[in-house]
């Protein structure tokens, strides 16, 4: 199982601060999240890809392989705004 922390802005509608789901890749984790909270996948993905304005931190490191990013068992995921540098 992995723990996914729900962004502050979504918590009111989703009703929880974190969800615990199973999944070995981001694609599987998002599918599992959507099963728990229907519609959440649309907040994370658009046109079958991760939304560019979102970054996903897996155990403290930003994932850069999109939906195929491996997610280790017991990982902690944060969905955070992406940041562009200068």
């Amino acid at each position, binding site marked *: 199982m992995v723990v996914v922390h729900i962004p502050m802005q979504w918590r009111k509608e989703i009703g929880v601060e974190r969800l615990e789901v199973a999944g070995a890749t981001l694609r599987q984790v998002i599918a599992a999240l959507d099963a728990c909270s229907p519609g959440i996948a649309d907040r994370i993905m658009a046109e079958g890809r991760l939304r560019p304005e979102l970054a996903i931190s897996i155990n403290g490191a930003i994932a850069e392989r999109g939906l195929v990013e491996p997610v280790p068992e017991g990982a902690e995921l944060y969905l*955070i*705004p992406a*940041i562009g540098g200068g």
Partner: protein
Amino acid sequence: MTTTERQAQPAEGYRVVGTRPVRPDGTDKVTGRASYGADIRLPGMLFGRVKRSPHAHARIVRIDASKALALDGVRAVVTAADFPDPGDAVVPTIRGPIPKQWQLDHIIAGRKVLFRGHPVAAICATDPHVAEDALALIDVEYELLPAVTSAREARLPGAPLIHDDGLAARVPGLLQVVDGKPTNTSRRTEMRVGDITAGFAEADVVIEREFETAMTHQGYIEPHAGTALWNQDGRLTVWTSTQGAFGVRQSVADLLGLAVAKVRVVPMEIGGGFGGKLITYLEPLAALLSRKSGRPVQITMSRTEVFEASGPTSATQSRVRIGVKRDGKIVAAEAHLVYESGAYPGAPVPGGARCAFGPYDIPHQYVEGFEVIVNKPKVAAYRAPGAPQSEFAVECVLDELADTLGLDPMELRMRNAAREGTRRPDGAVHGVIGNVEVMQAMVSSPHYQSELVPSPDPVKRRGRGVAMGFWQNGGGESSAYANVHADGTVSLILGSVDIGGQRASCAMQFAQTLGIAYEDVNPIVTDTDSIGFTGNTGGSRTTFATGWAVHEAALDIRRQLEQRAALIWEVERADVAFSEDGIVRGPDGRQMTFREIAAELPRTGGMVQGRVDIVPTSAGGVVGPAFAGHIVDLEVDTLTGKVEVLRYTAVQDVGTAVHPSYVEGQIQGGVAQGVGMALNEEYIYSDDGVMANASFLDYRMPVANDLPMIDCVLVEVPNPGHPYGVRGVGEVPIVPPLAATANALTAALGVRVSQLPASPAVILELISALDD
């Protein structure tokens, strides 16, 4: 300005990394031979100019270019109507989805103009003066609308709605809705760690303050310039000054409805960017003018156009509250951020939110931020976008807390320093970082250990300030190709534009891995058809990510040369090894230098190319965040309000300083820009939205004789997530100067400086209020 020389020797364990070789672009730049954006000349090239709105907010009633087109020498005019209709499309961006129509509107307005300088038409002619004259002949009829040029005005009930086209309704959250109606307030960002209410309940002392910063410009010395040739076969070539050729390619292809493979972007030398050259402004206009005229077209901006119509950084308002225990332990901190976006969404609120409390380990944190749309140019990235403003507010409150608690300001910071394992408000956990080491180096520096002597002149007051800064840095995709030549030299082909020494830093990492001399590597920045995708040169990512790519390219060559040596020696591949010293060794004492085996390549199967396209973090890399701490002494003339910076020391964890001179240059540049933001720089607008100081004469950036020696102290805590310990160094040095300068001014004047720039007028007002 000068710098403290750290070392002339390579970094420990390295032969090339850590030395200070001559930069590969140096000769061309000092002799004037380097070709920047406006330097390209093509046969038959026409000169374009952009017709811009004189109004900050108006409806376009009619555009009539017939008189301009009739002028001898004028070849074509384009307006928004010449672009493919974006329809209802919504496009994803790193700042969130926006209507594609707004992307086009930003390039050239069709319905409304939203800021002074907003393009409404573009024209090209055989001569730049004819083009200039023709602009005056384009007749544009406007219906004036009330303008709002500050977030405060824009958020008032009843403020004129800037985006009234209804398109925002397609993107939830793009505009905040009040009583069922959209407003000028755009996206909201919120982050939380712990329980902020419980945290403040634990605090013995709580201080809350409000702060403001002005809209400022990156001030790159080279104005934007774009040249395009739309060939009759449908292929488009663009020559431009940009931080990201691949980003320009995508943007141009999207706006013009072209296949990416039909567009080639050639990056020219770049005269500064600092984030401001990540955006496309002129290239789509030049492209359409080229298609219409059948000739190459070049458009350049004047300095006034750069100020009025490119992308400065946000003016901001911040409210920060921090609670501490009597022993100086911070228990709770919250920040409310309001950043102006300019005419379209995209203010760097997420950056400000993620970095606000970055240098500290605080159990309970809350950050809320809003972007606000105003009738000013759309903001762009500017060096650590969003962080200088939010950290300015936080560092000022920390200074006041230290004073209240009777603690040395560095002692308070060190008691709360983030370190390995500290969780940031965005959920990420710090790995190996040099934050504590930076603080220790600040405290032990000769500057901090020295006494600040009062001015002998009674009208002048002196003060010292400190501040920390944090920026997370970036990763992303980079490509590198390396062609080995028979004489033992290598052409290193890069997709990363060189804006701050990346050719040198990449060539050095490549030479280090391949065991050859830096001088034997010729680094070349190439066009988008000649190398794999490479992300922007921005986000302090290039020496990290492209540096990783060249390291991998060198490893690729090593593997191929091992195979070739095995072939030549007729031995097993497993018995051959390429060593760090650049020598290939085989069984029975056989060995060849890199140069010797390179000479054999043409007759043993052909030349060798190392080739890599990589996302370093997907290969096990970790982006190393950056920390900086600055100390500044300054003197205020209480009669004139003028501030003189007397002494400045910038300490920074730089990971491994690949080329220390470049690192010091980045730090000094960041300090200069940050001091400018703190003391002088600001967009000054009239009530009707006209910028009153759109020239370098009136927009006061610091120049060399405004600043003292900036001492750089390079703290090297290597990033374990990179082969050479690299951390990005380019952005974080702009973060601390705002707060360090404000804290020094506060110490000098005895009154909190909370509004930047602290220009002479602001200082005199503060002194006057104090005297009253």
